Structures are given as structure tokens and as C-alpha cells.
């Protein structure tokens, strides 16, 4: 084990997998930086958003680490073609705000091709992006969506995503980038489709999604002080999510609060509450509920910390909602 920041853990996963599998091709805007100017001595001038792909071009060369033009739909479609012919493209779509530009290729091609072709076309594509807007992608059968919550899951889920023969969208989060944690140095993959209990408890289940897991943990500490031992479950795979694992926790605690940083309507929090209501009905002591930002057309509000603080549910909001649920 070694101490790593979140972004280093994600980068570590990609580098280790590229070493063991030559079919991995990295595509995206400025994943190396300064492309096509090696003759001028310019190489690896940027290294992708927040440096996650820095250094890869020097180790693996420009054929495998490809700076693309600003053409999200185009290079996501190129990834589909590469995947159909046996490669494992790793695609950087900088932020979730850019994902709609690639939506057609991601949904109609990457999510559907394996099923529609009756298994002739495989789409082992990893799409990596930063942001909270994960619910729309979870809508599409055929796509696996994951959201790590700490350096350990960042590396383990990135490795799992790359090794998966099915397409995986990895929702990383800027607010987690500099979180530090203990990470095994060797390669490892976390199982896709499995949530994990990160703090056991009995009074209620707090379900975290990506960066909201650390908010749930902070809230659970406060709740414990107030005599309410909350169990914190980290969802990790957003689609297809671990219905059995979450149900098991809720059956133990009788209460569920999902903390979802995406928009409220037609989102993951609502879906989880609906399913758990059905699956754990006889064990429920309160209606499952979910906490989200208000329905305003903003995402993260990282441009303005003061607005972000108002926008995202914080530990205090989670404590208040939990206390109400247990009241």
C-alpha cells in the first residue's frame, strides 16, 4: 500500500493496464498535449485534464496516446470502430458537460452494438469524464456506469472499466482529485456492479454516489455523536447498480437516504428509492428518500465556491434529512 491522491490512483490504473495490454488506445483532447510537434522538441505538453494522462505518450508513443481535434462525437465514434476491431479504446471526454456532444455515438453505437449485433460487435470502451451529471448515462441498458469515491476505488474501478468487455463510463469528480488514501501498488480490479459498506450502522442507510460518499461519512460521524448509528454504503457502480447489496443494508436498518449530486428529476436517487421501496417494503420503517441539489440548471457550481456551497447537499443537510427520517 502507498499513499496516493485520487488522480494519481486513476492514472496509475491506466498506466499499469496499458503496460499489460497493447490493445488499449488513449483518445481525447490534449491527452498528451502539443501534438504533432515532436520535431520542435514539444511532446507531452499538457497531459490531459488534471494530468491523468501525463507521461503516457513518452512511454507508449503517439500511436497509442492520441491527441484528437475538438470532435467529441467523431472520436467517440472512432472508439466504437476501434473496439469493433479488437482494440480497447480509453476515451477522455473532459467534463460531463461535453458528453452530450458524443451522446449519439455513446448510446446508439457503443451501448447498443453488442446486443443488436447478437454479440458480433464488442464495445470494450472506457469513457472517462469529470462531473456530477451521471444519471442520463445510467438510463441506457448496455452501458456500465461507475463513480469512484476515493483513491482506492478510483484505481480499482478504472482497472475494472478498462478490462471490461462491455463499455464503461467512469464518472470522476473534480472535488475528489486531491483526496488522499492508501492504494495497493499492484494492479487490481474492483468488481463491477457491487456496492460496498464503508461504515456499518443500524439506524439508517446513507447511500453515497461518488463524491457524496465522503459527505455521507462526515454526516455519519455527526449522527453517531447524536446517537444515530448510520450505515454508509458506497454505490460505486451506478448502472447496473447493486440492488441486492443496497436492499440487504436497508433491510438491516429499515431506512434509506440516498445522497445524489445530480439533478433531482428522473435521476438515480429516485430510481434507487423506487426499487428499494419494492424490494425492502416489509422491512421499511420510513419512506426511502433522496437528497439532491435543487432543480436549477447548474452543475456543480465549481466556478463559484459560494454558490456550490448552497447548491450541493453538505453533511449538515444530510444530518438534518437523516434525523427527520429517524424521527
Amino acid at each position, binding site marked *: 500500500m502507498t499513499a496516493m491522491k485520487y488522480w494519481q490512483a486513476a492514472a496509475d490504473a491506466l498506466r499499469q493496464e496499458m503496460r499489460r495490454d497493447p490493445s488499449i*488506445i488513449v483518445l481525447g483532447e490534449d491527452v498528451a498535449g502539443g501534438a504533432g510537434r515532436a520535431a520542435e522538441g514539444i511532446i507531452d505538453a499538457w497531459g490531459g485534464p488534471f494530468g491523468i494522462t501525463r507521461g503516457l505518450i513518452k512511454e507508449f508513443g503517439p*500511436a497509442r496516446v492520441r491527441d*484528437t*481535434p475538438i*470532435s467529441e*462525437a*467523431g*472520436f*467517440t*465514434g*472512432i*472508439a*466504437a*470502430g*476501434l*473496439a*469493433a*476491431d*479488437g*482494440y480497447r*479504446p480509453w476515451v477522455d471526454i473532459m467534463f460531463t458537460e461535453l458528453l452530450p456532444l458524443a451522446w*449519439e*455515438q455513446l448510446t*446508439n*453505437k457503443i451501448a*447498443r*452494438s*453488442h*446486443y*443488436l*449485433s*447478437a*454479440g*458480433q*460487435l*464488442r464495445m470494450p470502451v472506457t469513457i472517462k469524464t469529470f462531473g456530477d451529471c451521471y444519471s442520463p448515462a445510467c438510463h441506457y*441498458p*448496455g452501458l*456500465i456506469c461507475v463513480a469512484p469515491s476515493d483513491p482506492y476505488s478510483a484505481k480499482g474501478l478504472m*482497472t*475494472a*472499466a*478498462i*478490462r*471490461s*468487455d*462491455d463499455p*464503461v463510463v467512469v464518472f470522476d469528480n473534480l472535488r475528489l482529485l486531491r483526496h488522499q488514501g492508501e492504494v495497493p501498488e499492484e*494492479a*487490481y*480490479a*474492483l*468488481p*463491477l*456492479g457491487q456496492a460496498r459498506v464503508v461504515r456499518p450502522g443500524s439506524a439508517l442507510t446513507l447511500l453515497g454516489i461518488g463524491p457524496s460518499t465522503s459527505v455521507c461519512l462526515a454526516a455519519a460521524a455527526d449522527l453517531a455523536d447524536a446517537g444515530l448509528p448510520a450505515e454508509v454504503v458506497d454505490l460505486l457502480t451506478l448502472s447496473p447498480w447493486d440492488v441486492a447489496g443496497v436492499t440487504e443494508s436497508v433491510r438491516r436498518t429499515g431506512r434509506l437516504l440516498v445522497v445524489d449530486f445530480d439533478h433531482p428529476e428522473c435521476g438515480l436517487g429516485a430510481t434507487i428509492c423506487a426499487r428499494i421501496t419494492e424490494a425492502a417494503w416489509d422491512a421499511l420503517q420510513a419512506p426511502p428518500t433522496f437528497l439532491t441539489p435543487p432543480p436549477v440548471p447548474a452543475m456543480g457550481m465549481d466556478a463559484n465556491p459560494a454558490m456550490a456551497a448552497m447548491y450541493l447537499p453538505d453533511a449538515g443537510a444530510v444530518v438534518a434529512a437523516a434525523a427527520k427520517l429517524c424521527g
Partner: protein
Amino acid sequence: MPADQQIMLDLYRRLCRCREFESALIRYATKDGKPVGHPYFGQEAVAAGVCTALRPADRVVGTHRAHGYAVAKGCDLERLALELYGSAEGTCRGRAGEMYVAETDVGYFGGTQIVGGNVAMAAGLALAAQLGQLDRVAVSFIGDGAVNQGVVDEALNMAAIWSLPLIVVVDNNGYAQTTSVRYATAGLIAERWAPYGITSLTVDGQRATQVYDAAQSARARAVGGQGPTVIEALTYRYEGHYYGDRHRRYRSQEEVDSWLARDPVELHHQAALEAGLTEAALDQVRAAASADSEAAFERARGGRAVAPPDLLEGVFTGRPGED
């Protein structure tokens, strides 16, 4: 038989298979209450001309108007007919239908509903060939309407900067659904990507030999590292956008007649005779295409229907990412 006669015969064989397969489709499907989809009638020389110039391993992607591309690339007619009939014995177990059917073993990687969407995938297939240093190209058939979708431009730009072995064939049949290319498209299609350094040309899409020659040169350039080519083939669809579309609302009889007078199958029949092939040899090819198509749809009628397990199976590969 001299090489050029062999090519003339192969072109005729593909033309006839495209024509006869769709003729049988319309006869059977209208009787059996099955969908006909988007007939390729009138455009056959484009798919047949290009696919005759390709190698079996070359990759082809199509559009929504997919019968012609699938047949010309060599998809199994029986399984294709079963697919169009929604049978679990179809090429894609009845899931894909006309617009998404794919048979990768013959290099046909499927169509799409999004008219320009597959150019990007084709660029990826071309990149795979380039990375593997293979003697292989990717061909994306699109229509005149698709040239106005942004993703086509994105893909062609990347194909140009990376010299990808990509051939984009524009079946310019004059109409995007009901909208005339003259209304919807600024400038000339064949000139649109020439400033990118992409070899671009316009051919008579009713003449299979012209299309073949253009595709063969494009293929040679592509595998020689000289990058992509755009071939605009001027052609016409005899039917509407879909079978049953009241296309006379937007096309005059004179216009339709002027194209019917230059039927690609008839024009090539004539050219093949002039190249020294015999009427008997050509008749035999056409009769075989007709019999194969007929047999395919007879078989489709008896295909196993899809059952509930067919619906749910295979959303994922079943191979998770754990080590």
C-alpha cells in the same frame, strides 16, 4: 475468362443480387405483412461497384437504407431474410432489422438510423487497420443528406490528419427523405472536403464500372498511406424514402422516368455484352440471384420466431472486469 470480363461478371452478379433480393423482399413482405423498409432500387451500381473493388476483409458500414450494402458486401441472403422477418435465426437473432443488421464475418459492420453517424465508426475501423498495418480499408456509405451532419465532418477531418484508410461513398440520390439536395446542401458535395486535402470525385452512380474504378483507386491510395477518399456517386432511388412513401408529391414523373431510362442493371448488362460476355452467361447470373433470393424468403417464412429469452439475453458480454 480475361480479368476484366471476370470483374464485369462479378459486378453483374452483385447488381443482380441487390436487385433480386429486394424484389423478393417486396413480393414476400407485402404478402406476409412484414416491413419492407428503405429500398435501394435504382442505386445498386453504387454498392455493387464499390464492394466488387473491395477485399473480403475490408470493412463496410451502411445507413438506414441498408439492404443493398449488406447484400453487395456478401451477407448471407437466407439469414438476412430471416433477420428482416424478425426471426431468432436471423443474422442478428432478429434484433437488428434492416438498419442495424451486421455480419462481421463478411466485413459488414452494420448500418445505423443516424445517417452520418457511421462515418466516425468507419474512421475507427480504418484506424484499427492502420494500427495493425493491415492491407485493409473501411468504407462508409452515406447519403446526400448525411453530408450536413457535423459528425461526418469531424470524422473526415481526423481521417485526413491521420491519413486513415477510409473511403466515404456518398450515394447522392438527390433527396434526403423528401428534401432536395439542391435545397439542403451548399456547394458541391465532392468539393466539400477537397480543401482538407481529401481526394474527392464525382462518378456516374448508374455505371457500376465507373464506381468500381473510383473505389479501386481509392482503395489503392488508402492502403498506400495516402489517406481517405470521398466518392460522390450520382444516382436515384426509384422508390420513396421508405416503401409506400408517396414520393410523387416531391418528384415529377419526368424526373423519375429520366432515371428509369438509365437503369444500373440494364446499363451494366449492356456493358458486359460489349465486353464479350454472353447473354447466356448473364442470364444464368440473374437467374441464380433470383432463385437464391426466392429461396431466402421461403426460408424466412419458416424461421423460428423470437421468444422472451431472446429479448433479455446478451445485453452485456457477461465478462465483468474483475481479474
